[in-house]
């Protein structure tokens, strides 16, 4: 066991874990965050996605030791039910989920995409979502929510 300092959602945390522990377990068990989820443990579904330094990262295969001083943002770091991030609000407005277990990975992947590419084309959204899985098959609404956010977020727009 070793003590690590992690910056998560704007706060600094100290955790005492096996250095090989994937970041996901530290977030969900040591810090008790509910956003990142264990889906497969194999980086094949996206449910565990967090953003590190603006990139969408699969926390289930990311050893906690590799995070270093980078800022980790999880789904709850974006907004709250009372004050959701505009991207989260787009998902609420479009009712873009069914069970909602995948939605962490969907939103965190879309956030990294739209931060990098403010108004992505459908092809760019498809590419970003190439290995993000939604088994309830809410594809149509998920795309609509991402488009809604991207359009309101595009440069030159004030909405």
């Amino acid at each position, binding site marked *: *066991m070793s003590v690590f300092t992690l910056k998560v959602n704007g706060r600094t945390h100290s955790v005492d*874990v*096996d250095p090989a*522990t994937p970041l996901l*377990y530290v977030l*969900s*068990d040591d810090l*008790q965050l*509910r*956003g990142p*989820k*264990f*889906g*497969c*443990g*194999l980086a*094949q*579904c996206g*449910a565990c996605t967090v953003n590190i330094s603006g990139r969408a990262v699969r926390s289930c295969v990311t050893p906690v030791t590799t995070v270093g001083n980078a800022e980790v943002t*999880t*789904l*709850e770091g*974006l*907004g*709250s*039910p009372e004050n*959701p*991030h505009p991207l*989260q609000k787009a*998902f*609420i407005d479009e*009712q873009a*989920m*069914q*069970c*909602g*277990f*995948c*939605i*962490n990975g*969907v*939103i965190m992947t879309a956030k990294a995409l739209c931060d990098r590419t403010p108004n992505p084309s459908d092809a760019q959204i*498809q*590419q*970003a*979502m*190439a*290995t*993000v*899985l*939604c*088994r*309830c*098959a*809410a*594809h*149509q*609404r*998920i*795309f609509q929510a991402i488009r809604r956010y991207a359009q309101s977020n595009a440069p030159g727009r004030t909405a």
Partner: protein
Amino acid sequence: MIPPMVDSMTSDARDALASAGFSRRDFLKRSGALIVTFGVAGVASELGLARGVALAQGINGTPGTQLDSWIAIAADGRVTAYTGKCEFGQGLFTAQTQLIAEELSVPLDRVTLIQCDTALTPDQGTTSGAQSHPANFNTSNLALAGATAREALVQIASTRLGVPVQQLSAVEGTVRVTADPSKRVSYGELVGGKKFEVRLNPNAKRKHPSTWTVLGTPVKRLDIPALATGRFEFVHNVRVPGMLHGRVVRPPSIGANLVSVDESSVTGMPGFVKVVVKKNFVGVVAEKPWQAIQAAAKLKATWSAGSGLPAQGTFHDHMRKSPARDGLTVDSGDVDGKFTGAARVVKATYRYPYQMHGSIGSACAVADVQGEKVTVWSASQAVHPLRNTTAMMLGIPPAGVRIVFTMGPGCYGVNGADTVSYDAALMSQAVGKPVRVQLARQDEMAWENYGLAYVVDQRVALDADGTIVAWDYEGWSPTRGGRPGGNAPGNVVTGFLAGFEPQQFTPRTPAPAPQGGFDNGSNTAPSYVTGCVGPECGGCGVVKSERVLNHTVESPFFTGPLRSPARLQNTFAHECFMDEIAAQLKADPVEYRLRHLRDPRLRQVVTTAAQTAGWEARPSPRTTARRTGVVTGRGIACVLYEGDNGYCANVTELEVNQDTGVIVVKRCVVAMDSGPISNPDGIRNQVEGGTLQGVSRTLLEEVAWNTERVTSVDWRSYHPLYLGADVPKVESVLINQSDVAAMGAGETAVTVTAAAIGNAFFDATGVRLREIPFTPERVKAALRASRAG
């Protein structure tokens, strides 16, 4: 006169309420309430419902539990409703909240819905089979409780105001004099400090859908803001003080038995607590999840050889040769004679693979076993049945077991939720502390209760006009285990490994004559037959000469309900076959269907889907079909789900690249009629998800195995429809029927997708695909084979 409240709650229920922050008993003592209860003698008989109605609209569980309350209205006017049907992502929590708000005439935010907790809610059996809408939104159960409560409040108000009930209305949590709304009294004032127990009144009148203001509207899901922001508590997020973490170690091959476990191989590892063994069940408990994973990976366990598996490539033929349990859905007795005199006979065989639920999150549960006092937080669809089987697993009485439903990832049937509840319970019992278990992806996928493989032989006799005069169906499907129900924990893997047998399979040949009415619950009979059993005819069609014979055989794998179980497989076979017949006769597929359908609602979804899609009446295939490159086609399929539980038709348009074998579905127009619509956006979400899940199952999904074990153990070896895939635009057309019973809405759309795609493929290419999934390899092989000949 309304009798005073009789407190009939169990002590367990009171404890549960107390721990939840409010004790119903104390609450009532303190402030009074009106509670709607049902009798312990059984709801169906009490309501005097006919057998068929009782099955469709009954409590859908086991009456006789002491938990007999549906609704409590407190002195502050707040409404608490208790339901045994729970949320799995289908929007039911919100729809049931709407139902209570509507029937009681209170604002939505004044309703608290408590779902699926064995200490608190009525036993409504399993939340499955698209049965929640019929069970709770018609004239019994939760809906009737709402109407009963409203009428009781109006009656109390009548006494208090001295105004006849006919002159009163319930509006926004008050009872008002209709002609003078300033004369009013709130529900809270009516309840005051008194206690009322109101028996469920079978004569209470529900509001007519034409008057609804909350139900029937697209109320947004109450749970989505928490889901979208990571505040929602899934069962995976349940944390209990002192909780440890467990990891299962499953056998390396099917049929392998445990020879020995070397606990010393893991003792001393960081956080290691205990190895738990019960017959062939092996689990490792540690302080942290990562430690449990490490220890489970390192544990030395020796297993015997497995029992071997039949070859995947010839599995459908293997089923045909296996000892079978035969059943007849319908048999008019004259089928063979009709074939002898037929002008023409058409035959075809359809094959369907095993598929898996493949929930996005592997299954998880938390169990706290303290002697005979047990709490399990579980995403099971069946909390009350699970209470009994968990007690069996632990060898204790069920009285002290409480199952608290906590949502998991979409399950689409009996996924790993029950089995992981047993995993957690066994490990918690062994260590005397709460234990959380989340399965590894491969442990879930390799040992699921898979959706059914199928092989179906279809045969029809046609007269000189091309009208079907006899339909002959013969199908084979495998079974092993299934839902544990209330007494068969061996129906899922953990129960079996721990020493319980799956439900016994007994071959039976020949099938007994069908009796007790036409039951098309598995859609074994096509829509086009009359479905006559005895004097009653329950089918949707006109074909009088009919025989539907099913053979159930033993499965090498566990099987269980997967969204539209058997109904999807059979509908694939029926609706593709109907298309084949129409094509042979050069008839338009829509016109040919309508020629054989008499049910007006099924006809209506077919014509509605066709009109909305701009269906061009002509035979399939397209005469202009080219033999290379990209071609397009359209196809239709329809169903009355379960023979009585939701009408649906799908018109699909697609492209086929004949060089690569890739099918891209472009557009699906889906018409649905499930009676009165409770939440139009909720239904649309179900239609869209069901259709795209159908696309995934049609084009991609198939469980694979070798001689020893299942080899589909992750998302590389079992192929799902990723979000980045090319998916069709799904257009739903909802037909709202306000004067008929509520039917199921969650499983209809997925049922018709495979056939609509198969038919559109034929329209595009002139080649028939008769085996799911339609992979590029299979497509290319079918095109080659057809064109070689």
